[in-house]
């Protein structure tokens, strides 16, 4: 069985490529700074942040977190099978990865609908301004990730030589970045206030 390898110990070749890791750190710093700002505002108006937080459905937030974690797990398996040239299983796990992402978006859409119906929109208060901006920005990343994965799936289906390990690892790293961002958003928005 042929295996494809890139030496990840080289500082210039982290899994996914150096440019993507620069992007990942920039994204983490941006979201991290916004979450810190939210915590600072929350400290100044604890009652309002606590009451607003109670309007959120923690069960949906938890299921969404599990969906993204599972999606990341399937992505990791898809990359491992790709490295072993087992494209059939790689493709199967890639589909499951996308399914996890779609489940997240469906539940998020339901949650957004619930909030809009009762008037908890962007301008309702500071908590919901942060809620909408942070989660919508994350959703946009997820949509971009799904488009990238759909192209990867097309390449896997079309021709085994079309998909390259560098591209697969870069797509996977972008998808995992969405997981990482959500892991920071989830406790700050749904749990700590």
């Amino acid at each position: 069985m042929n295996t494809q390898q890139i030496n990840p110990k080289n500082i210039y070749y982290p899994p996914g490529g150096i440019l993507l890791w620069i992007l990942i750190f920039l994204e983490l710093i941006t979201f991290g700074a916004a979450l810190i700002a939210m915590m600072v505002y929350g400290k100044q108006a604890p009652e309002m942040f606590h009451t607003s937080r109670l309007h959120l459905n923690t069960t949906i937030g938890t299921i969404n977190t599990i969906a993204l974690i599972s999606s990341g797990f399937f992505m990791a398996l898809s990359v491992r099978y790709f490295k072993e040239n087992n494209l059939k299983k790689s493709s199967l796990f890639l589909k499951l990865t996308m399914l996890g992402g779609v489940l997240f978006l469906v539940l998020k859409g339901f949650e957004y609908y619930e909030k809009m119906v009762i008037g908890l929109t962007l301008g309702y208060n500071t908590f919901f301004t942060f809620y909408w901006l942070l989660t919508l920005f994350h959703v946009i990343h997820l949509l971009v990730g799904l488009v990238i994965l759909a192209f990867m799936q097309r390449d896997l289906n079309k021709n085994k030589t079309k998909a390259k390990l560098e591209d697969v690892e870069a797509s996977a790293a972008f998808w995992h970045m969405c997981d990482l961002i959500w892991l920071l958003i989830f406790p700050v928005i749904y749990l700590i206030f």
Partner: protein
Amino acid sequence: MEKSLLVKVWVLLVLLTISSALVGNNFPHYRYIIAIIIGLTLVKFLGISFFFMELRKAHAFWKTIIILYLFIFSTIAILIF
């Protein structure tokens, strides 16, 4: 071998997510409770970056920088509360 390790990490991450949701919903939000929730988040973050993203096989620079990021984020978060 590596795939079974991924399964173990995945199960751990799911359990930690459920635990943090239970802690966040059922305990008063004292500083140490928030520290526990942030701590669970850090473990999950490391699980995804080191195992799913294979950062544990990468150059030490990338591991150090992600740990440094988490250290700064969590320290600021805990200091705020």
